């Protein structure tokens, strides 16, 4: 169930979402996750736990990897937000998506958008990560299906592929 918000007055929030300027009318404490999913129809970010443990709702906020379930929408005012839907042009996406498919990094798929965003964020900082870097970089994103092994392999493969280009 969503937190009760009816007492707070709605306010206008302006931000850039996937490169486009957007304005929404929302309760200031409404979760960014809900605004993205319900008001903007960007359902790639998923709710897994609602308390910042699982990372399924990961988005990039001014380049930082954040759990959108923990961000009150008022806090995102003026920010630039990128969701999985806005990542297709990123040069890391294709190698990561292909590697996830080839290595079996996506099973049920519910953690996958967040996991791929976390992987992009990691590879931007560390283009040639060691296994420990990958483990650390993805530690905020839970996966119950894979045991992470295939995800590590996919990230490693994508990094190598990009390095070879």
């Amino acid at each position, binding site marked *: 169930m969503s937190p009760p918000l009816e007492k707070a007055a709605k306010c206008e929030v302006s931000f850039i979402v996937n490169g486009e300027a957007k304005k929404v009318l929302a309760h200031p404490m409404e979760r960014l996750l809900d605004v993205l999913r319900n008001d903007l129809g960007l*359902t790639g970010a998923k709710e897994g736990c609602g*308390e910042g*443990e699982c990372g399924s709702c990961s988005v990039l906020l001014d380049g930082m990897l954040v759990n959108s379930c923990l961000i009150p929408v008022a806090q995102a005012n003026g920010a630039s937000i990128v969701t999985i839907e806005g990542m297709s042009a990123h040069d890391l996406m294709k190698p990561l998506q292909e590697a996830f498919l080839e290595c079996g990094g996506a099973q049920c798929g519910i953690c996958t958008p967040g996991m791929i965003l976390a992987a992009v964020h990691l590879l931007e900082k560390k283009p040639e990560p060691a296994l420990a870097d990958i483990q650390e970089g993805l530690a905020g994103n839970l996966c*119950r*299906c894979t045991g992470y092994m295939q995800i590590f392999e996919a990230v490693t493969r994508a990094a190598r592929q990009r390095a070879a280009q």
Partner: protein
Amino acid sequence: MTVRHIVGASVPRKEGWDKVTGAARYVDDMVLPGMLYGATVRSTIARGKIKKITFGPGIAWKEYVVVSAKDIPGKNCIALILDDQPCLAADSVNHPEEPILLLAHADRHKLRKAVDAVAIEYEPLPPVHTIEESEQKSTIIWGADNTFKNFLVEKGDVDAVWKEAAHVVEGEYFTGAQEQLYIENNGMIAAYDAEHGVTVWGSLQCPYYVHKALMTLFALSEEKVRVVQMETGGAFGGKEEYPSMIAGHAALLAMKSGRPVKIIYDRTEDMVATTKRHPSRTRHRTAVSKDGKILGGEIEFAIDGGAYATLSSVVLSRGTIHAGGPYYWPSVRIRTKAVATNSPPHGAFRGFGAPQSLFAMERHMDRIAQVVGISPIEIRRRNFLKPGKTTTTEQTIRENIDLHHLLDRALELSNYAAKKKRFEEENKTATRKKGIGIAAFLHGAGFTGSGERYLNSLVGVEATADGSVRVLVSSAEFGQGTNTVLCQITAEALGLPYESVAIAQPDTTVVPNSGPTVASRTAMIVGKLVQSAAQGIKQALTKTDLLSDDYTPQQFRDACREYIATHGALKSLARYEAPADVFWDDEKYRGEAYAAFAWAVYVAEVTVDLTTYSVTVDDFVALQEVGKVINPVLAAGQITGGVAQGIGFTLYEKVVWQNGCMMNNQMTNYIMPTSVDLPPIRVFFEELGNVHGAHGAKGIGELPMDGPAPAILNAIEDATGVRFCAIPLLPEDLLDALGSESPELDVSSLARGSP
């Protein structure tokens, strides 16, 4: 006919691209016009009578749709096996979080306060919270004796073996509840109208279970109930039976309001209210010869089923049949029971009773080895089942399995002997003690006993005029690879490229009932039927001389077009036929329990830190014989995921109970393994084949859940010399045991938690 060997190739996951782009549609991603949101008012006590329901002040109740048991048009139950679980409690409650009322409102944010504003007065009744309290029967909470089901397996003359025995080895073993913790919470959307009846879209494993439950709940005929499975974000058994409850709730609200209703649980509600793995207790008393041969034994296996029967009898059955492990028992008596307690019903979870009884068996084997004075390796070698020998249910092993070879290979892959020697030496001075342990086990594929016969599954394959082929099954994809594997089998059977085969979204108006997506049955049983249905398409085309035996995809397309122009449609169905040599006696619990077993030897290497009392698993070798591996990448993913979940079951995941209610129902305090917690999980397959499975496949999904717990506890004992008999085993449990002076302390009670 150039496309070959799609089976055995790691083709990409059928729905993979949608998943890696975020385009895949899960139930919470779906919105219907005019949709309301639903919420559930639940009991706050474990057991009692409902005296009074008050709708408190401060809520505009007129805006809400309210549903109670009185609004149920059919039978107030979740139809499954015994139909004892109400959809909504009417007069009494039998567990905390039992659904009593349903509310719906157009504004999601207005639900929580309203749920909290409903005050329910109870007349409390004494609850029962443990297996021990339940079996004392001083308070009867279910049926005549608190017992959902008993099984008795008897082989040979157990009573005669005790006097021959050189050793009688006893042990008692416990496993805790475990949350499935799929990352996508449970959810459903329902719509209702008088003409079409009920439609639900949801996150689920078994479309026809939900279908049956809704027919009963609404007293509707089968064509008036439609169930559609959306992309499902993990299940692990946790979406086998409970989705029927949520579907019923959403549909009742939809009927009363006349609008579509969405119910999505948040994590806390999902964890506190839905099913978990059955807690268990296993007692072994084993007669062993001087040289370490099992002569016979008694095994008592008990599981805590929670407040209603749900699937406990079937979970108990699988646990019963697996209780003897991969060993030859000349005689055995296995007495098992599923008992009632006042907690939410425990339910299906990967392994389904087998991880519990195999944990006990494999810990007990190490104990027997100690008593006899031989190694954990040798005790297993001396007792392994082999071709021609019979299992505890007197099923003769017909396949050519060589467990000695499997064990040898696992020892080699894990470098067992060298490590064992090195750890013994280093442990003399280290405060970080290292150990290595093994577990050998088996897992039956498909429904137990006569189960597949009763399921009587039906599948279809259809071709269209443009030569595209579609698989029609109710078997659901929830990450394990159903879509991909069944398309591979079909493509292989038809000699077509993988890309030209699709699979229908499970929708009960479109797909036949191929049974539930459970019990490691999809690749083996459903796969074989799909193979047969696909061959039917080919036969239809060759018999009508539209196609020769050797053809190109283009010729196949042309033939389909011509066939459909003449006959209207090209569809082939295949129904399960029980193999003639698979016989099961439900009365005596004897016979061919499973058409095939998968076999495995797992090796775990651990470090026990005596400063922090933490255990880390440093290396994990998972070697298994699973018949033909249809898709190596997906198969390996099943094993690594299962092992990770098994490591969680063993070392991290503790359900803290209070008055029958889970207290740590958050990801913050119920801890599953993260990316930094796991060892390299090294997966190896052997492929003996299996005459009962598609291309020789066996079941694989549940198997990896069975081995980690005993292998890790065996390794911890190897490291510390302390015999732990209960999981989960958390650092505080190790501290309690290792911090004390007596290594013989009975630590079992410490790690069990207190329900």
